[in-house]
């Protein structure tokens, strides 16, 4: 299979890579670019552990081909913190114990960051439905929702 050459932007950096046609964006991030923060939980778009944003929208990177990244802007969990400064969501996740094993956490951070960017004051129900595409098996979601609420409140303070 001939490889495709792709030029894209990841976490603000210009990146280019070669990949096979049937390689997913998740495969590329993890296996070619060393960005192992996005996780593979199911490869069928049912668990959200691979969530990244593509031109500002949350997607399952396991359902995007690497080739489709051409000219797009991708953001992963590795791009959420600002240098050595954690994002309020990351801080609240830690403070509220919103992670136990932590495997789903990158996906939740990407999804909830996108949620708060489009809806800075979500209700509990809005949070729950916005995060329905991210599975967590450890926490029962309670502390995750509370962490998102707390981060939202903090971010609204400006």
């Amino acid at each position, binding site marked *: 299979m001939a490889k495709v050459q792709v030029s894209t932007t990841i976490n603000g950096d210009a990146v280019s890579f070669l990949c096979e046609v049937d390689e997913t964006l998740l495969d590329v991030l993890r296996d070619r670019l060393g960005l192992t923060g996005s996780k593979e939980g199911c490869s069928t778009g049912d668990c959200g552990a691979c969530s990244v944003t593509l031109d500002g929208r949350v997607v399952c990177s396991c359902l995007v081909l690497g080739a489709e990244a051409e000219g797009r802007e991708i953001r992963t969990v590795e791009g959420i913190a600002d240098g050595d400064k954690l994002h309020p969501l990351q801080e609240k996740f830690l403070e509220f114990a919103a992670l136990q094993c932590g*495997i789903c956490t990158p996906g939740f951070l990407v999804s909830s960051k996108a949620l708060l960017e489009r809806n800075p004051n979500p209700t509990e129900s809005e949070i729950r439905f916005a995060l329905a595409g991210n599975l*967590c*098996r450890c926490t029962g979601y309670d502390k995750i929702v509370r962490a998102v609420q707390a981060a939202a409140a903090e971010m609204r303070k400006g």
Partner: protein
Amino acid sequence: MPLDANLDPRTHQFKYVGTRPLRPDGVDKVTGRAKFGADATAPGMLVGKILRSPHPHARIRSINTAKAAKLPGVKAIVTRDDFPETKDPSLKDVLYNVMAREKALYDGHAVAAVAATSASIARKALKLIEVKYDILPHVTDVDEAMKPGAPLLHKDMITDGVDPAPTKASNIAAKCEFGHGDPEEGFKRADHVISRVFKTEATHQGYIEPHACLASVGTDGSGELWVCTQGHFMVRDTCAALLGMDVSRLRVTASEIGGGFGGKTTVFIEPVALALSRKAGKPVKIVMSREEVFRASGPTSSTSMTVKIGVNNAGRITGAFAELRFQGGAFAGSPVVLGAMSCFACYDLEHVKVVGYDVVTNRPKQAAYRAPGAPMAAFAVESVLDELAQKIGMDPIELRLKNAAKEGTKSSYGPKYNRIGLIDCLEAARRHPHYKAPLGANQGRGVAAGFWFNFGGQTCVSLNVNIDGTVALVVGTPDIGGSRASMCLMAAEELGIPYDKVRAIVADTSSLGYNDISEGSRVTFSTGLATISAARDAVTKLCARAAKIWGIPADAVVWENGYAKPSGPNAGNFEPLSLQDLAKKAAKTGGPIAGHYEVNADGAGVSFAVHLCDAEVDPETGRVQIKRYTVVQDAGKAIHPSYVEGQYQGGAAQGIGWAVNEEYIYGKDGRLQNPGFLDYRVPVCSDLPMIDTVIVEVPNPGHPYGVRGVGETSIVPPLAAIANAVSNAAGVRMTQLPMSPPRLLKAIFDAKG
């Protein structure tokens, strides 16, 4: 190690224990830096893939790998021929499950494996392996498998625990029995007796991280293995045995683990990766796909249970009986023994008997799932108690209080209880606002109690003092729930230094002595008491160093709040020396300062819980919504309350999924129909309400701070609490799980008549 005589955890002013600091592995996990099983790479790494039987039961006549071997990029292929027969009977089933021997025993059973230079070449190679199967009849249902004439999985399986032993082989691996007294006598004295049959479907632990490992074996037979596991020492010993390696030549490192819940307490792909690596002379990485996880890792048993309980009008249980029939997949070992031991454990009973059958079927070999065996058995028992409470017009918590086990009660499984917290939990549940909250239309409330043994086990801890007075804590139990934070809290407490000065790592198998698996809710208890003991050992040594510096006897030095001090004015007038001071002087006073503790811990305290659930049923569609949920559980002493709450909520959530929607669905062809998260329906965020938690603390007399394990008890009551709530909401008693909408709607319509 017992509770400190001088320390009543209920009144003692802990400095660090009981607080909620940030966990040491936290920043890595929120930035994507943490390395899980599939995140490691090695130069020259090959990709391993496993060929799996598509048949639930078939004799493997031949495996021809010639074509696959010729495919460019294929570097090694292994089959049953590459795994020598084991002399160890306890390993035989593990070996035969890791790689099928004479027969494929379930849809998904590993038959061969390939290591190649890319995933796509490995996948192509699998397609070129020619396996000739003779298909055999199969059986997947536990009751069907017990019938005479059922398709036989193992021709030498004679039921253990039956006297005289049967003459014919069957699918019943073992029978067990527990209890005391005579239930028939008890039923005679009852005013009401209810007997019901219950069924539960098989479920999976559902960890989001698939099994993954990276194996690297050199030509000298030394190997390294990176793996997500709950027990890397177990992995080392098992793989070394299966591969004929010396234990000392295999170094296993536990990665961060993305969930286990018992499902990662055994090996599946690890021996295969090592065998491929040895053959190829290169590192081999194997990562299970989600489909493989469902088909070929270790779900829990499906069950069929008969429970009969009698009560008098005053609410006392006069007799209790249960027969549990659990299928554990293709090999013996379903958790029916633990289910049988635990199902009546909450109650003070004069006449109780439980019989259990361990049955094999053509399904993947089961693995532990959080309090193995207990949730299903509790579902049956607690449902019958709910019906009896309604029959005699008694509040369900009152009924349980009237029969609750307490200190000194002879348990249904044998031993007498020490100090326990069941009554405290029942009373706390009854006091909780949830219990009095009004219910709306089509809503019902359910209550259930639950029990788990909790375990101790082999544990080592090393504690090393660094030159700057910080402390490196070395443990051997993978962190599956935030335990590193709890260990640091306990070490900080003993040493009297800030939590931030202690850093815990999980050592690899070459760097520490043997540690049993992180299971049985044992880590905070066992690694905790080992940490406390290692810290006390270090403190003894620190005091000795101070004594040396001061020129006084070692027993004239005490440790207080992080300082060595003379024990009294007679010992001398010296300025206290901090841990930092002593650390700086270590080289001059005798060398590195460390504490150790090695133990086979016992004294783990049993843990009880009571759950309250409000459910709403749509009577036209059978859809269930969980409206409110409260967990009340005895933790003995909560070292880090946030992570204790997390265990309560997580167990409840898994119980909700199990009760309402999760199940393994097999077709008539014996193949698994829903090996994915689309149709294996775990709860999503919008399915659940906030889950309230109440931490009850009745100290465990067997731990210095009173700790009881908490990880497993939380999944024991939910099946029954939810079934009781749904049954009350729908007006029909549900005896089969999951209560999926088609089942529930049919029950509602059947009841209408």
